[in-house]
């Protein structure tokens, strides 16, 4: 009885945990996290060390093979995965936070606040960010993962702001908000119980999208040579591979395997997101 009561209260959790897409997504995502955490302990090499002969295809000693100069690709990939998670987490959080705050203020207060904030958002949306990033990168000769994350996070928020704004607008105009108002409920309680609570699932999905979006944006930067100057990341591994013409030289493992890991990570987030969409949207759930 108690268990039934629990699932009744946490219906969404129940649907989430019985949704195939969510389950698949979460499993893969968890595997990736475990790989990032324990991977470096599993390999005897360090990521910048010349671990053996160059040009070695995948084998027992070198799971993902070695690079032209003999660095271990698996080691570089798992360390890179760590940085990638860090970027997703930091940049995704920054972008989601800024986007939510701006979108919420614009949607809730409307009028000139809305006009002003949306103007800023639209400017950011159409501004040639790449140019900005190139200039920024040029002025920051030493760039760590943190710097990259902040740059990516600060530029990834506009679409979130727009999405959150329209979500806030639609919730604000719901009858239950009006009913709370005429029931003499404090503005703070309305914000918390009627608006924020109903936006939670939406913001959660936005966060997942930002997580994968910022990861890809960071990889893009790294690919252009604007990545971190210290450490290693998935984008950097792949950029090196491309710079050294790995594919043409027959070192497919150098470029393809890190790329595969990245793809699997992003796909797992996509699965979680579409699954959750069905969970939070009862109309999709019924099918």
């Amino acid at each position: 009885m108690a268990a039934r009561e629990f699932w009744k209260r946490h219906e969404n959790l129940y649907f989430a945990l019985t949704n195939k897409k969510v389950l698949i997504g979460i499993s893969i995502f968890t595997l990736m996290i475990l790989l990032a955490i324990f991977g470096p302990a599993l390999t005897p090499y360090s990521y910048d060390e010349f671990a053996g002969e160059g040009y070695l295809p995948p084998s027992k000693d070198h799971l993902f093979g070695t690079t032209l100069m003999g660095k271990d690709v698996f080691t570089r990939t798992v360390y890179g995965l760590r940085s990638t998670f860090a970027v997703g987490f930091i940049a995704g959080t920054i972008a989601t936070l800024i986007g939510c705050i701006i979108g919420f203020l614009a949607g809730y207060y409307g009028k000139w606040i809305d006009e002003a904030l949306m103007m800023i958002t639209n400017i950011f949306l159409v501004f040639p960010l790449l140019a900005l990033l190139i200039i920024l990168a040029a002025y920051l000769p030493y760039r760590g993962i943190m710097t990259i994350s902040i740059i990516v996070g600060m530029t990834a928020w506009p679409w979130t702001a727009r999405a959150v704004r329209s979500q806030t607008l639609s919730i604000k105009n719901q009858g239950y908000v009006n009913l709370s108002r005429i029931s003499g409920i404090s503005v703070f309680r309305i914000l918390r119980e009627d608006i924020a609570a109903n936006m939670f699932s939406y913001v959660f999905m936005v966060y997942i999208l930002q997580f994968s979006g910022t990861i890809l944006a960071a990889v893009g930067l790294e690919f252009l040579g604007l990545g971190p100057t210290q450490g290693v990341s998935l984008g950097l591994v792949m950029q090196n591979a491309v710079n050294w013409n790995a594919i043409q030289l027959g070192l497919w493992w150098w470029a393809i395997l890190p790329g595969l890991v990245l793809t699997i990570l992003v796909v797992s987030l996509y699965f979680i997101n579409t699954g959750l969409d069905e969970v939070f949207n009862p109309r999709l759930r019924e099918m």
Partner: protein
Amino acid sequence: MANQKQDSIMSIQNLTKVFKSGLFKPEVTVAVKDVSFEMRPGTILSLVGESGSGKTTIGKLILKLLQPTGGKILYKGKDITAIKDKEGLKEYYRRVQAIFQDPFSSFNPLYRVDRVFDMVFKSFLNEDNKEEKIYKALESVNLNPERILNKFPHQLSGGQLQRLLIARALLLDVDILVADELISMLDASTRIGVLNLLVELCKKNGMSVLFITHDLNLGYYVSDYTLIMYKGRLVERGSTRKVYENPIHPYTKMLFNSVPDIGKMWDRSKEFLPEQVVHDVRKFYKENQGRGFEEVEEEHGVLFSDTY
């Protein structure tokens, strides 16, 4: 009756609401324009008009859920736009309440339906015998409390949710009740019960009801006064008997003509064509150019032209 006429509890004066959106490409909707009427204790005022004519907007303006663009709303002689502080608002909502049009969106999906009662008890009522009072209110709208309380909104039907909102409003002994499409989702037998309850409360407690509806027969059945809205304008206003017996504005005439009579064949010639109405109204306004809203007899006014 003559005495009641003087002490209006709420006075709507030249009320106007314009919705604007977009800074660079402004889109303007005139939802309500220059509407005036009085609400008196112990009377039901029905507000009739087609979809989009501004009925709900008037209700929301009265409830301070929207700010008027022009005009005034006086409650007991005081302008309600002056009410801004928390205590003042609470005081106002203690006396001015509503039942909203859409029962589905009136409940926060994350909470049990009991929340609507909890809120009014916390803000306005003495919590003694809370449960007993809720039970009584639910039973008066034909709901079985055991089967309704503790449920989530999506587990109840539209009619049940609507009756919950009615029960909520009944708990508060209010001066003014805005009832927006109050019984749209109820079946015939519950309808009569709820309507009779409303009339009884109104007469007994001296409540003033703004009864918003599409349904002319319903309006006739419950209301003392009738307001007819057309495209944001109040086109005819008066005691229900006078307006129904002697409609003057072409839109009002069309409304009465297009009500099908039970037992008679549907007369196609009476079918109502929107373009025809627009044309008739335009012609009427042109013929009466220079005239505005005029009283044609005691307690019966008509808008003769919208360009005065």
